[in-house]
């Protein structure tokens, strides 16, 4: 039996977990539901020892447990299956299985092999001990992890979004294996945003929202109540830009591409001039892949992409840029800004052509951009000295004046509510002159407030494509959770 008492995890001012208390019974499959930013992954990382809690108590069978690091947690019997399998691709299945366990000089491969084959067989997993792990699918790597954790004597198994990016057959195998584990008195924590999966296998569900527990329920599960706890009530709808959409500016036809966990599968979408399209769905469901395909940073495996009238399939990012696609990455210091360069130098990179750098002009542009977007900084400030929120403002200030197609990855990340609203005012202003905006956001409320059209991504597929005025929070929430 696991008891969580008033768990807090703060990252500076952000309260990822804001006083969470719950009980998990032995031998149960306990679901943790929530949308982006609910705090589910953080809570599980705290439980698994990956991250230190800010305050609160964890009790295992009544006794308070304080452990640092996943190794200690494993000794106490807690193991976690991460969203991205943490394994060694160049080593074989058997070697991964044995990792960290062989004592002494000789590695005793024979007995480990038997154990691997027995355990795998008992769950119905088909794992060849000698295949290198990089040749396995995500589902198979998960199976290997489960088997490895069981061999380590783990009694509490945490799975973080396990059914993302695996085939439906593998999903069935996984869910069956989980039921088997529960029947062997193992405790399972199943973190997900997918209602179907949770309903299929969980005995009890706790719903989180913005760092807090909003509701708990036993089987049988009531979908509408769960959705209400996950997404909250409908916010007031703000008046948004009602520009009449013009010509097609971005066309994707049956585009598929790998990327992230789910990739993008068979996407056919057309964006028109003046539209503000919000990409909704759990992070990593294909929104990022969509944006990067539209920016030319990823080349599609199948399908056709057109920007305005030109067929752009297979061309590189700079060609897309010339056609008017502007990409704003979410990773500010890794992709968006160049550390070590000042604000002026960033503007200088964009200033015209010619041999010499127009330093005066660049300094003026920098000062102007700082002023317009209220960046707290001066032209000679190195960009890494700016706070996250100000880096985001700077990224927006660096965008071209008359953009044709804006592709924004989490454009208001790190900004407080007021700043975010102000930024959207500026951005929506662009649509009046025919610009189109496609953006992803972790906050559903933002999308509902600002976008004129919403695309919902689920497991790499666009499951819903609707005008915002024709839908509401509940419907979008359903689509995000997989119930279309």
């Amino acid at each position: 039996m696991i008891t969580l008492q008033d768990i807090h995890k703060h990252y500076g001012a952000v309260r990822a977990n804001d006083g969470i208390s719950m009980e998990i019974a032995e031998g149960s499959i306990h679901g943790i539901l929530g949308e982006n930013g609910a705090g589910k992954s953080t809570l599980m990382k705290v439980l698994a020892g990956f991250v230190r809690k800010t305050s609160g108590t964890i009790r295992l069978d009544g006794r308070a447990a304080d452990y640092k690091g996943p190794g200690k947690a494993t000794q106490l019997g807690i193991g976690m299956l991460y969203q991205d399998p943490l394994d060694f691709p160049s080593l074989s299945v058997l070697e991964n299985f044995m990792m960290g366990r062989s004592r002494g000089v000789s590695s005793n491969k024979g007995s480990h092999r038997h154990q691997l084959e027995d355990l795998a067989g008992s769950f119905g997993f088909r794992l060849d001990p000698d295949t290198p792990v990089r040749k396995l699918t995500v589902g198979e790597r998960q199976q290997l992890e489960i088997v490895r954790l069981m061999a380590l004597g783990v009694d509490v198994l945490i799975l973080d979004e396990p059914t993302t990016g695996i085939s439906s057959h593998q999903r069935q195998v996984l869910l069956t294996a989980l039921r088997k584990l529960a029947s062997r008195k193992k405790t399972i924590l199943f973190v997900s945003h997918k209602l179907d999966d949770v309903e299929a296998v969980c005995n009890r569900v706790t719903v989180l929202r913005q760092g807090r527990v909003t509701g708990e329920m036993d089987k049988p599960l009531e979908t509408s109540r769960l959705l209400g706890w996950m997404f909250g009530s409908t916010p007031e709808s703000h008046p948004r830009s009602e520009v009449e959409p013009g010509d097609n500016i971005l066309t994707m036809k049956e585009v598929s591409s790998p990327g992230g966990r789910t990739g993008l599968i068979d996407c056919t979408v057309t964006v028109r001039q003046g539209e503000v399209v919000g990409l909704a769905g759990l992070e990593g469901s294909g929104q990022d892949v969509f944006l990067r395909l539209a920016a030319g940073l990823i080349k599609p495996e199948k399908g056709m992409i057109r920007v305005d009238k030109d067929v752009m399939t297979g061309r590189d990012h700079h060609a897309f840029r010339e056609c008017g696609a502007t990409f704003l990455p979410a990773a500010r210091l890794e992709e968006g800004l160049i550390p070590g360069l000042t604000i002026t130098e960033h503007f200088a990179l964009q200033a015209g052509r010619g041999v010499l750098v127009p330093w005066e002009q660049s300094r003026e542009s920098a000062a102007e951009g700082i002023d317009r977007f209220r960046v707290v900084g001066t032209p000679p400030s190195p960009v890494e000295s700016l706070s996250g929120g100000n880096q985001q403002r700077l990224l927006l200030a660096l965008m071209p004046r008359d953009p044709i197609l804006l592709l924004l990855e989490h454009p208001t990340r790190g900004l407080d509510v007021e700043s975010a609203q102000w930024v959207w005012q500026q951005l929506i202003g662009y649509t009046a002159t025919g610009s189109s905006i496609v953006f992803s956001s972790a906050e559903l409320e933002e999308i509902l407030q600002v976008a004129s059209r919403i695309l919902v991504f689920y497991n790499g597929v666009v499951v819903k494509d609707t005008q915002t005025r024709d839908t509401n929070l509940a419907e979008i929430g359903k689509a995000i959770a997989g119930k279309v």
Partner: protein
Amino acid sequence: MVRRTVGAYVLMLLGVLCLTTLIVLAAGAPPFAAFYHLFEGSLGSWTKFAQVLTRWIPLTLCSCGLVLSFRIGLWNIGVEGQVVAGAISATAILRMSAEAGFPGISLVLVFLGGMLGGGVWAIIAGLLKTKGGVNEIFGGLGLNFVAQGITLWLIFGPWRRPGVASMSGTEIFPSSLWLPTIASLRLSPIGLVLTVVALIAVAWILTRTRLGLAFKGIGNSPKAAYIHGLKPGRYMLYAMGMAGACAGLAGTFQVTGVYHRLIPSISSNYGYLALLVVMLANYNVSWIPVIALFFVCLSVGSIQLPMMLQLDSSLSGIVQGALVLGILFLHAWRKRTQERNS
């Protein structure tokens, strides 16, 4: 905070001094005398100083080029081979004009040819990196060996001295093809002017041109620079080409102004030494001539040591190496304390 930094540097210099003193003592020689001879041997007379400057020229030329390749984030270890390639090109042109007989024009051609030779050699390493994904350290090192091999082949093969092929190199060029020098000093004013021009040019490129800004951007973050519209591959080739051209100039100078022929060790390790100079200068152009001068003084001065004190002249190498290690350690330490404080 600044005081702390200066203090750290002083401490480091003292540490290097102590290390050197210990080694001198262990070799059984008086330390003060050793240091005295190091500097007397290089600055003691005009003749000696002229020797210093003659070595300063190729070292600084190589360093100028390396600042550019370092700026874009490349470890251009192949600079040695680029010096040799420049020297080979220069020798080839000189041999051709020795037969034709137009000294004035041919010297200009020779320098241009040397730049081209060094530049091309560098671009080969650059292409290996941008198109083949071969790390520039391995590519450069491999090409160093190839260049060395070609030199030996030329000296013992097609370009050998009539009669007996010799390790002392090819035939000496007629004096009409020598770089003009100040009579007794054997110092070439053209070489000095060339070096000063190179220093100014590189400083100008880095601070005032788009090219320099592009180098900086790509060097700091190739990914972000790409999203800002720069093509990292193309600029890397530019940087390598320019670094190779500077190294080629150094090689040309060695052939026309110092040895007047091609010898096996024509690059005299100036390329590798230039790497140390640039690292010590923290990639700052204004420090390069000073640090290069210091290094050369050490090298020239250490020639006195075997005669005067029965010490091996490689002591200068120890000082140079210890200094660079000290600086690298300091930089890493400062970076760590900065990260910890933020």
